[in-house]
Structure formats: structure tokens, C-alpha cells
């Protein structure tokens, strides 16, 4: 470590450039991972907040809540427990004269069931009338406020925002929570339809009705429009970036090691064990990678703070630890590649 640190201190520009390169790579990986996680979160925020374990849909709805319909004749045969909630989903455009239109997902609830009772508000109160709604706080950034009267699509009816909730997005759109009767109105459905589906906190909930199927929540999430494709795209981008990083870091460390061979030959001639030189190379790589990662993560934190709220960026510890460990590992692997060169340094080369 002594030699490694002394060399970095002495060759500030050279090692500064390498730290800068690792900074940029880690910054890119962190930002991409953050965007990937943020976007994935926006697809599932609401579902995650409910603590759902399974979703019950019409078996012909292609695992889509929007496409599913549960009829009254079906739901009359069901006995829901405290762990089940009816949900009616439909996409809407929210309109208000003073604010811009917002594309949202309307979720009709029975407010006496668990999703309604457990919903946490950041402002306001839960609806007490059919023409009242609770909206995701993303609406606040578009200027919407408590008491605003909004319309959906070309519907003439007005609905009053009585509460804001946090982390309520589905299919990357903010959620408007209202009643099941409003959902029927928006879908222009008769009262013979109850909801789009049932959300259950019980993984084994079964209706016993052949036309209805219970899906694990993970299956339901993976079938959300674009969710798997988007996650796979980001995963491949990050994986390729990591592989390219490994090659770039390895090439840089290899060149650095080659440039140091005459110094290593002198030290070997003086009897310095090759193990000391290998440790020096690896500890130097770790110092450089740690430095780059520290700066890269700081820059990422700053960027995340400065980005507009509309940019879906989010981080979680397992993801950050995984990405950091991945880059650290690429650094160590990169440093290990030229170790063979160090072990083969011939001290005779420094004797004239």
C-alpha cells in the first residue's frame, strides 16, 4: 500500500486520469441503474405499496388488470376476507382548466377494503363521496392542489381532489384513486360489472371460479406492458457496460504495469519479493477504483438531486452494493491480469 499511495501522489495527473475514467464509468453505471430501478419502480409502485401477493383476473385477460372484467354474477359467489380488495383500472386523461392535462391510471376501490383502509395520505383525507378522489403527489408538481375539481377524458362530471398519496404509480403513470362506481362510469359499464380484478395479500387465495385465475404478483408485474422488455434492456446495457469497463480498466492497468516494469526490475534486483510488487499493484488498483467509485457515487447523488422530479431515478442499497461490488471486482480482475508480468520481471534487465 505504501508504494501504491506514494506513486499515486507523485504521478497525480496520470492516476488522476485513471480515477477520472473510473469515475465516469461508475457514474454512468450508477445513473443507468438508478434510471432502470426508478422506471421499474414507477411501473409497480402502487402494487408494491399494497403489499399484494396475488392478483385475480379473468383468465382470458392476458394477465392484464386493464383488460380484465369481473361480473357481478362472479363476484356474488365470492367471499372476500380482509386481505382482498376489488380494483377497477382504466387509463384516463386528467383535465383541469388551470393546469396541464395529466395521463394517469384511474383505480376504482371499495374504500372499506384493505387497499382503501391502508392507503396512507400525505395531505388531505380519504374520499367520503363518489365524486372525490385521492391522487398521487406527482400531480402536485403539475400544479394540482387539494380542492381542485378535475375531469376525466371527455366526461362532463367533476371530481374533487381531497387527498394526495405518495409512491402511487402503475404502468409509469400516476394513480387517481376513486370509487368503483366512478370506474364503471369512466368505462361506461353497467352495474353488472364489479371490478377489473381482485388484489390479495394472500398468495394462495383462490376463487373456485373456473373463469377467474389467481396469478402470483411477480407474474402479474412481469406481464405489465413493457415492464420485462424495459428491465431486460437496462440489464443488458448495464451488463455490457460492466464488461466494457472491465476491458478498459484492465487495458489501462496493463499499460501502467508495463510502464513500471523497469522500476519493478530494480526492486526485484534488490531482493524485494515479487509478492510485495503484486500486492502493490492490486492495492493500487483498489485505491484507484475506490477513489473513482467514491467520486462517481458523489456525482450521482448530486445529479439525482438536481434532476427534475419527472425523471424516474431511484436507488436502493442492494442495487448500489451490487453495482459497486461489480465495478470493484472488475478493477481487481483488471489488476490481476498483469500479475503474471510482474512475477516474470527479470531483474537482469536493469544490469547493463
Amino acid at each position, binding site marked *: 500500500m*505504501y*508504494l501504491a499511495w*506514494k*506513486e499515486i*501522489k*507523485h*504521478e497525480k495527473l496520470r492516476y488522476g486520469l485513471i480515477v477520472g475514467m473510473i469515475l465516469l464509468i461508475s457514474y454512468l453505471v450508477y445513473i443507468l441503474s438508478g434510471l432502470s430501478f426508478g422506471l421499474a419502480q414507477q411501473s409497480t409502485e402502487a402494487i408494491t405499496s399494497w403489499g399484494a401477493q396475488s392478483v385475480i383476473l379473468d383468465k382470458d385477460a392476458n394477465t392484464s388488470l386493464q383488460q380484465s372484467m369481473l361480473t357481478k354474477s362472479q363476484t356474488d359467489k365470492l367471499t372476500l376476507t380482509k386481505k382482498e380488495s376489488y380494483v377497477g383500472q382504466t387509463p384516463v386523461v386528467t383535465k383541469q382548466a388551470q393546469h396541464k392535462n395529466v395521463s394517469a391510471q384511474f383505480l376504482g376501490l371499495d374504500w372499506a377494503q384493505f387497499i382503501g383502509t391502508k392507503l396512507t395520505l400525505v395531505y388531505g383525507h380519504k374520499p367520503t363521496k363518489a365524486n372525490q378522489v385521492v391522487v398521487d403527489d406527482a400531480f402536485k408538481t403539475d400544479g394540482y392542489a387539494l380542492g381542485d375539481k378535475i375531469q376525466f377524458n371527455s366526461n362532463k362530471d367533476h371530481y374533487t381532489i381531497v387527498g394526495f398519496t405518495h409512491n402511487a404509480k402503475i404502468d409509469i403513470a400516476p394513480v387517481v384513486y376513486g370509487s368503483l362506481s366512478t370506474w364503471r362510469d369512466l368505462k361506461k359499464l353497467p352495474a353488472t360489472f364489479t371490478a377489473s380484478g381482485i388484489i390479495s395479500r394472500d398468495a394462495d387465495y383462490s376463487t373456485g371460479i373456473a373463469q377467474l385465475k389467481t396469478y402470483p404478483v411477480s407474474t402479474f408485474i412481469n406481464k405489465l406492458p413493457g415492464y420485462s422488455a424495459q428491465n431486460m434492456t437496462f440489464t443488458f446495457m448495464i451488463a455490457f457496460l460492466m464488461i466494457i469497463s472491465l476491458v478498459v480498466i484492465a487495458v489501462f492497468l496493463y499499460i501502467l504495469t508495463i510502464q513500471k516494469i*523497469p*522500476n519493478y*526490475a*530494480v*526492486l*526485484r*534486483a*534488490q*531482493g*524485494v*519479493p*515479487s509478492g*510485495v510488487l503484486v500486492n502493490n499493484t492490486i492495492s493500487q488498483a483498489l485505491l484507484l477504483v475506490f477513489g473513482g467509485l467514491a467520486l462517481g457515487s458523489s456525482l450521482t447523488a448530486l445529479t439525482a438531486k438536481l434532476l427534475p422530479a419527472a425523471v424516474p431515478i431511484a436507488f436502493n442499497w442492494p442495487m448500489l452494493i451490487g453495482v459497486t461490488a461489480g465495478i470493484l471486482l472488475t478493477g481487481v480482475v483488471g489488476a490481476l491480469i498483469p500479475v503474471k508480468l510482474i512475477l516474470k520481471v527479470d*531483474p*537482469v534487465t*536493469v*544490469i*547493463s
Partner: protein
Amino acid sequence: MTKTTTIEMHHIDKTFGHDTSKIQVLKDIDFTAQKGEMSLVIGPSGSGKSTFLTIAGGLQTPTAGTVTVEDTPLTTIPVKQRDALRLNKIGFILQAYNLVPFLTVQEQFSFVDRIKGTTHMDPSGLAALLDDLGISDLVDKYPSELSGGQTQRVAIARALYPDPEIVLADEPTAALDSQRVAVVGQLLHDLAKKHDKSIIVVTHDMRLEQFADHIYEILDGTMRQAS
């Protein structure tokens, strides 16, 4: 007084290359170095002086013959043991690139302490050595800030700092003026006489002749004692 042998080389041959491109650099060399003596090995460029030095210091193995350093057969021990022997018993003064470029003069010495885990010279001893070599005011400089002569003198101090039993020097005075040659020659001579060290110097520089106990000449790979 009984002399103690430090390096013993018997029937040393060294050949490079194969078949038609085979070159025999050293032929049947016998050499012995004693404690308290300074030996000078002279010869023209390409005569095999440096090869001789690398074999004596365990950096290369001979094609034939035996090398014994302080009763340890260099030619048969593992590389790690040879490294340890060089680190603990032998001080190399190399002609060029012999300082670590990113360590200051002071750090060149403290690095030796770090590697060996001990302090080799008290501060006053080091100060006296640096003073003798006229480099006391260079301790905070990096090698790139030193002249050729200063670099050479720091390299000499660096080799002597661990107090090695044997000093192998490759052209130690190549970059020095006559005044400095005399200082270095006297220093090496004193090391042999006052500190009972074994000094072997490979050189072109006949100005060192006056400080040597023995002078050997290598010519076309064979060695003869000149005086």
C-alpha cells in the same frame, strides 16, 4: 588473520542462445571474494563483466559451475530464498534506473526499512553517510530532480543503507567527476576495511584502481587476476 570467504565461484560457464546462435559469455571462471576486501573487475564492453556480476548476485544462474554466497549454494536454492539472500546480504549499486522514481531520497531509505521490517541505520549514521557522499541536502528531492552524479551517489547510499555483507557495484562511478570518484572509491574501500564488508566493483573506471585489493580482468569471457 583468517580470511572469511563471502562469494565463491567455481568453473562458471554462461552461454546464451542455442545451436548456431550460441554465445559463450563466461568461460570457466573461478572467483573468490573475502570479507574486508575490495575487488575490481575490469574489462572492455561486452566482455561479460555484467553477466559475471548478475551471477555473483544470484540474478542469473550459470550454465555450468557453482556459486556459493556465505555458505549458501546460490545455484540450487529456490528463487524466494535467493530473493531473501539478496535483500538481506547483498547491496546492489546499479548503473542506471536504480532508484524508485516516485520516492524521495529519504523515502528510498525508509522503503528498505518497511520491506525488511527493521531500521537499518540510526539517523546520525544515515546523516554521516549522506554527508560523506555530499547529498545531505537532497533528502526531499525526487530522482527526476537530481543530476546524473547525484542520482548515482544516492543509489550508492541506498545500496549501503541496509548494511549488506556484500556490495556488488556495476559502474558505480560512471557519472561522477574525479573528486566524487575519489569519495566513492574511499567510501567503498573504508566499507571493506573498517566494516569488514566484501566489495566487488565491475567497472571501466581505472580511477578506482588505487582503492582495490585485487584487480581482475575479464577478456573474451575468461578471467585473470591482473594484480
